[in-house]
C-alpha cells in the first residue's frame, strides 16, 4: 500500500496533454468534466430560447418573432434542455463521482465512455442545424406528435437521427454505469452500503436501457411514415395517431425519473453532510426509488387523458398515478427526518438541496392534482401543466445538479469556491424561479393554453411578471459560470474531507483527487460506509 502510494504519482498520474487529452480521453474525470461543460453550454443555448419565448410573451400581440419560429423555440428549448442539459449533466456527475464513491480506479468501459460523450456534439449539430434549413427547425412540440410533426420540412430526418444518436449515447452511458457498479466495487462495498447517489444512478441506468429503445422505435416509425409509405400513425392508412402518444409516453414518463433520480441522489448526499447526521431510512430510500422507477412504466397515459380513452383505462391510469405519491412522499419525509434534530449549516449546496426539497414538493402537489383524471380535463395543455413540470425540472432537477456541483467542486478542483457568490446565486435563483413559475398556475387555471405565441389581453399582467422573473433567473445563472471559473483558477485550499460533516470514499481521496481514483481498492466497513 505504501509502495503504491509513493509510486502512484510517477507511474499513473501523468495525464496526456493538449487537445488529445480531451478528444481521446478514457479518463472518467475528464469525460465527466466534458459532460458537465457540454451540459452548461446547452443550458445556456436552451435558456436563450426560453428568453426569446418570454420576450415575445411579455405583451400581447406579435412583436419579435413569427408564430412558426415561436413554435420552434418552445420545441427546441425542450429538446435541448432535456437531452442536452439535464441528461448530460446527470451523466457528468455520475462519471466524476461513481468510481470515487465505490472505490474504483475508473469506469468499466473507458473507451465506450469516450464515444458516448463525443456522440453528443454531433447529435446537437444535427438538431441545431435545422434552424438553417428549408422549413425551419422542429416546431411540432418536443413530443413530436404525428400528424403535425410530419409537416416539418427538410429538418425532419435530422430531428429523427439526432434523437437516435442521443439514445445510443444514453444507452452506452447506462451500460457503463451498470457494469462499473456491478463489477468494480471495493471490497466490503456491498449493495446496501452504496451511497444513495450510486443507487439512484443504477436505477436510472436501468430505466434508460428500458425506455430509450422505445423512443427510438417510435421515431423510426415516424421516419418510415414520412418517407417510406407506411401508415403506423395515419388513420387513413389503417394506423392510429394516438398509438404514437402511447409509445412516446411509455418512454416519456420513465424519462421524467431518468432526469430526476440522479438529483434525488445528490440531495441524499448533501443533506446528511450539512445536517451532520446519517441519512434517515437508507433502506426505505432505496426501495422507494426502485418503486418509483417500477411504477413509472404504468402511468404513461396520464400525459394524454384527453385523447378519449375507455373509462377503465382512465381509472387505471389515475389510480396508478396516485400510487406514485406514496414512495415519493416517503423520500420527502425521509429527507425531512434527516434534517430533524441535526446540527445544520447552510452552505450553498445545502441551500440548493433545501430549495429542491420545498419546491419539488410543490411540483409534486400539482402533479397529484393532475393525476385526478376528471380535473385534468381542465388542467391539461394549459399553463398549469407548464408550471407543474417546470417546478419539477428547474428548482427540482436543476437545483439538485447545481447543488451537486457546489458540493463536489472543491473536491474536483482542490479549491473552495466563493461562498458569497454561491449564496447570491442561490437566493437570486430561488426568488426569481418562483416569480417565474408560480404565476403560471394562475394563468393555467384562468384558461391560458400552453404553446401559444400570443394571448388574450386579460393574461397580460401575469405574463409580464413571469417574463421579469425569467430574465432575472436567466441572468443569475451566469454567476454559476463565474464561480466555477474562479474556483478552477484558484482559491482557498480545500481539505480532503472538504465539509465538516462529509462521509464517503470520495472524501478519503486528496482534493483534487489523483488522475486514476483508486489504484488500490480501499477496504469498506459499516463504519466507513454511506454517509
Amino acid at each position, binding site marked *: 500500500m505504501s509502495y503504491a502510494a509513493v509510486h502512484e504519482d510517477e507511474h499513473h498520474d501523468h495525464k496526456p496533454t493538449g487537445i488529445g487529452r480531451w478528444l481521446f480521453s478514457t479518463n472518467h474525470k475528464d469525460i465527466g468534466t466534458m459532460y458537465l461543460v457540454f451540459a452548461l453550454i446547452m443550458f445556456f443555448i436552451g435558456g436563450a430560447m426560453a428568453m426569446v419565448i418570454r420576450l415575445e410573451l411579455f405583451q*400581447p400581440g*406579435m*412583436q419579435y418573432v*413569427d408564430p*412558426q419560429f415561436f*413554435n420552434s423555440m418552445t420545441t427546441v428549448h425542450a429538446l435541448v434542455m432535456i437531452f442536452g442539459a439535464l441528461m448530460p449533466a446527470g451523466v457528468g456527475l455520475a462519471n466524476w463521482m461513481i468510481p470515487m464513491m465505490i472505490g474504483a480506479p475508473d469506469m468499466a468501459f473507458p473507451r465506450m465512455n469516450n464515444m458516448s460523450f463525443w456522440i453528443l456534439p454531433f447529435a446537437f449539430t444535427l438538431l441545431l442545424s435545422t434552424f438553417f434549413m428549408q422549413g425551419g427547425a422542429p*416546431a*411540432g412540440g418536443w413530443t413530436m*406528435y404525428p*400528424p*403535425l410533426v410530419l409537416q416539418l420540412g427538410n429538418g425532419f430526418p435530422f430531428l429523427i437521427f439526432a434523437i437516435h444518436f442521443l439514445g445510443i449515447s444514453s444507452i452506452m452511458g447506462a451500460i457503463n454505469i451498470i457494469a462499473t457498479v456491478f463489477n468494480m466495487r471495493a471490497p466490503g462495498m456491498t449493495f446496501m452500503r452504496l451511497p444513495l447517489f450510486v443507487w439512484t444512478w443504477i436505477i436510472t441506468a436501468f430505466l434508460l436501457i428500458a425506455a430509450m429503445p422505445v423512443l427510438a422505435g417510435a421515431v423510426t416509425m415516424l421516419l418510415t411514415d414520412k418517407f417510406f409509405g407506411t401508415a403506423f400513425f395515419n*388513420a*387513413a392508412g389503417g394506423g*392510429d*395517431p394516438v398509438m404514437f402518444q402511447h409509445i412516446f409516453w411509455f418512454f416519456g414518463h420513465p424519462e421524467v425519473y431518468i432526469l430526476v433520480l440522479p438529483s434525488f441522489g445528490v440531495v441524499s448526499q448533501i443533506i446528511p453532510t450539512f*445536517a451532520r*447526521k*446519517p441519512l*434517515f*431510512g437508507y433502506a*426505505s430510500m432505496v426501495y422507494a426509488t426502485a418503486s418509483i422507477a417500477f411504477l413509472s412504466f404504468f402511468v404513461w397515459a396520464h400525459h394524454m387523458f*384527453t*385523447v*378519449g380513452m375507455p*373509462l377503465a383505462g382512465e*381509472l387505471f391510469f*389515475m389510480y396508478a398515478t*396516485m400510487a406514485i*405519491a*406514496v414512495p415519493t*412522499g*416517503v423520500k420527502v*419525509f*425521509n429527507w*425531512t*427526518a434527516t*434534517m*430533524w*434534530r*441535526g*446540527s*445544520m449549516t447552510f452552505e450553498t449546496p445545502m441551500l440548493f438541496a*433545501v430549495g429542491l426539497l*420545498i419546491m419539488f414538493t410543490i411540483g409534486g*402537489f*400539482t402533479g397529484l*392534482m393532475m393525476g385526478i383524471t*376528471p*380535473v385534468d*380535463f*381542465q388542467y*391539461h395543455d394549459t399553463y398549469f401543466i407548464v408550471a407543474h413540470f417546470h417546478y419539477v425540472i428547474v428548482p427540482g432537477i436543476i437545483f439538485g445538479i447545481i447543488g451537486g456541483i457546489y458540493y463536489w467542486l472543491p473536491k474536483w478542483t482542490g479549491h473552495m469556491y466563493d461562498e458569497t457568490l454561491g449564496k447570491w446565486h442561490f437566493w437570486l435563483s430561488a426568488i426569481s424561479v418562483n416569480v417565474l413559475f408560480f404565476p403560471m398556475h394562475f394563468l393555467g387555471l384562468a384558461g391560458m*393554453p400552453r*404553446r*401559444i405565441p*400570443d394571448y*388574450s*389581453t386579460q393574461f397580460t*399582467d401575469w405574463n409580464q*411578471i413571469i417574463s421579469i422573473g425569467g430574465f432575472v433567473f436567466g441572468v443569475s445563472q451566469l454567476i454559476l459560470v463565474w464561480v466555477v471559473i474562479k474556483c478552477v483558477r484558484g482559491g482557498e485550499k480545500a481539505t480532503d474531507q472538504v465539509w465538516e460533516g462529509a462521509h464517503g470514499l470520495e472524501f478519503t481521496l486528496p482534493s483534487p483527487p489523483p488522475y486514476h481514483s483508486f489504484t488500490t481498492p480501499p477496504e469498506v466497513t459499516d463504519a466507513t460506509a454511506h454517509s
Partner: protein
Amino acid sequence: MSVDKLKQTVLGLIAVSLFMVSGTVFADYALNLTEGVTPTSHRVYELHMMILYIVTAIGIVVFGVMCWSIFHHRKSKGAIAAQFHHSTTAEIIWTIIPIIILVAMAIPATKTLIFMEKTGDAEMTLKVTGYQWKWKYDYLDEGISFFSALHQDSNNARQRDSGIDPNTVENYLLDVDNPVVLPINTKIRILTTAADVIHAWWVPALGWKRDAIPGFINDNWTYIEEPGIYRGQCAELCGKDHGFMPIVINAVSKEEYAVWVEEKKAEQAEAAAGGDRERSMDELMEKGKTVYASNCAACHMPEGQGVEGLFPALNGSAIVNGPASEHVNLVLNGKNLMPAFKEQLNDVDIAAAITFERNSWDNKAGDVVQPAGVKAAR
C-alpha cells in the same frame, strides 16, 4: 401596469398563498379555475378545490416541520446532531396515512369521471371538426354546418408589427366570425374529430376539453344551465396558428335557438340556390378578399408572400398566373400540406378566392373564374 393593478396582483398573490379568501374573490383576480355553467364543471370545480385544500394542508404540515427544523436545528444555535437514522414505526405511519388520503381523493374522483362519461340520452348532436386553423360545426340533426375562424379584428391586430394595440380589440384572440349557437337546458352530445392534425376543443365553462383526432371520433356531452357567451381555445399544438383558433359558444334559450336554426337553414338554402349564377369581376373580387383572409392568408400570408420553406408565395406564382383549370384543381384537391378545399368551401367561395388571387398584388391574370366552372371541375 398601473400601481393599482400591481397592488391588486400583489394582494392576490398574498391572498392565494395564505388560502384565506373565498372562491369568488379568486375568480375576480382570474387566479382560479372557473366554476363553469354545467353540472360537470361544478363537480370538477368542487373536486379541484377539495384536492387543492388537501395538498395545501399537507404542505402546511410538511413545510412547517421543515421550517421548524431549519430554524431550530442549526449549528449556530448550538444544536447537537442526534444520530438516529431509522424508525420502522415512523416509516409505516407515513406510508399508511398518504394511502388513506389518496383513497379519500380517489372515491369522489371516480364518481365524477363516471358521471362525465355518460354520453347517452342526448337531445341533439353537434359535430366539431378541427382544421388548421379553424373549427367546423355540423348540427347533425338540423343539417346546419359552418366554419368558425378567428374574428377579423383580432386577426388584423395579431399580425406581426400590425401597429394595432391588442388592448383596443374587443375580446382579442377570443372572438370568432361565426359563433356556435347552442340551447340551454338541453343534453348535447358533442363529437370531436379533425381533418388534418390533432386539435383539442376546450371551453373552460363546460368543464372539460377533448382532443380532436383525424380519423377518430370522440364523444362527450354537455348541459349548459345559463345563457351567455362562453369562450375557449384550441388546446393541442396544431401548427403555426395554434394560438389563433378560438371557440365561442352563444348559449341561448330553447326558443331563441329554434329561431336561429330556422334563420340559419334559410341562409344556407339561399346560398346554395344562387350558386350557379354568373358573377361580375367586382363581386367576386370583393367576396374573394374575405374568403382569402379567413381561409388562405394563414399560410400564404395576407399579401400573398407565403412563408419561405413552408408555404409557397402566391404573388408571382406560376400556378396562379398559369391556366385557371390547374389553379382550380389545386385548390379543390390540395397538395402536400395544402388541404383539399372542396370539402371546406362552396363553389362561390372557391371561385371568388381564386379570382381574387389571380388579380391581386402583382398577379395580372385578368380572368374571372365562375362558380359554375368550379362546380364542373369538382
